[in-house]
């Protein structure tokens, strides 16, 4: 059974908690990602997504050069252990209404898995079967 460990991206892209929304957006753009971890005193304390930026900063008319990542990030970070199945990851995303989960190994964050990562993995598994229909 495919696990989160197979589907995830084993890298931690992050911004300091003091980064402005404008800076966060610039990093999302250059790194081509929809979510970034937020770091404070060497600890990952939250996750900031495109949806957070849209709903909690842009939509509210916040000053995007002033408001910081810490103010609008999602916390606590929703996590899943890497040995769990992709189906479990999907269920958690569905329950929480999120597109990204931090992936942990023994409680330590080692990467991230997105709805798109799950889809690509799921698709690889189901493709040969679907074509038999």
């Amino acid at each position, binding site marked *: *059974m*495919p696990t989160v460990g197979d589907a995830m991206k084993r890298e931690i892209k992050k911004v300091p908690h003091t980064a402005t*929304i*404008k800076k966060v*957006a*610039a990093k*999302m*753009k250059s790194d081509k990602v*929809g979510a970034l971890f937020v770091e404070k005193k060497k600890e990952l304390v939250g996750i900031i997504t*495109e*949806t957070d*930026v*849209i*709903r909690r*900063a*842009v*939509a509210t*008319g916040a000053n*995007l*050069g002033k408001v910081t990542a810490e103010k609008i990030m999602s916390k606590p970070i929703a996590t899943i252990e890497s040995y769990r199945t992709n*189906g479990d990851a*999907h269920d958690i995303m*569905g329950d929480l209404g999120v*597109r990204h989960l931090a992936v942990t190994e023994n409680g330590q964050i080692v990467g991230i898995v997105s*709805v*798109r990562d*799950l*889809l*690509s993995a*799921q*698709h690889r*598994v*189901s*493709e040969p*079967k*679907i*074509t038999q*229909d």
Partner: protein
Amino acid sequence: MSTIADNMRRIIKKVPHTTPIIEAAGKMSAERVGSLLVEKKGELVGIVTESDVVRKAVATGASLGNLTVERIMTYPIKAIESDRSMQDAHDMMADLGVRHLAVTEGGTIVGLISVRDLLVYFKRVSEPKITQD
């Protein structure tokens, strides 16, 4: 084989092309969607997504009360006919690097399909088979 018509959302959420980014973000937030179609002179001319707002507006430091959706929307709209398979929708999203496709019938847009709709579908298809592994 299951078609897009069976899995899509048959609803068109749209904004006028002159809508300021802040307002579009407000509508995304209120309707809990990640994209909106853009209408100009009775025609759907583009799609504006969370990624467009983050990467083309917030990241650039543009004035979001003045900038209109027409300036940052993605166009032409990437569309797929509703009689095509979910497989085709997945391949097209992966190839284009997008999370949403407009769904057409006879060339007319009748709704939208998202990466999350795909995931829900592929999970349903593969789950009973995976548990046999």
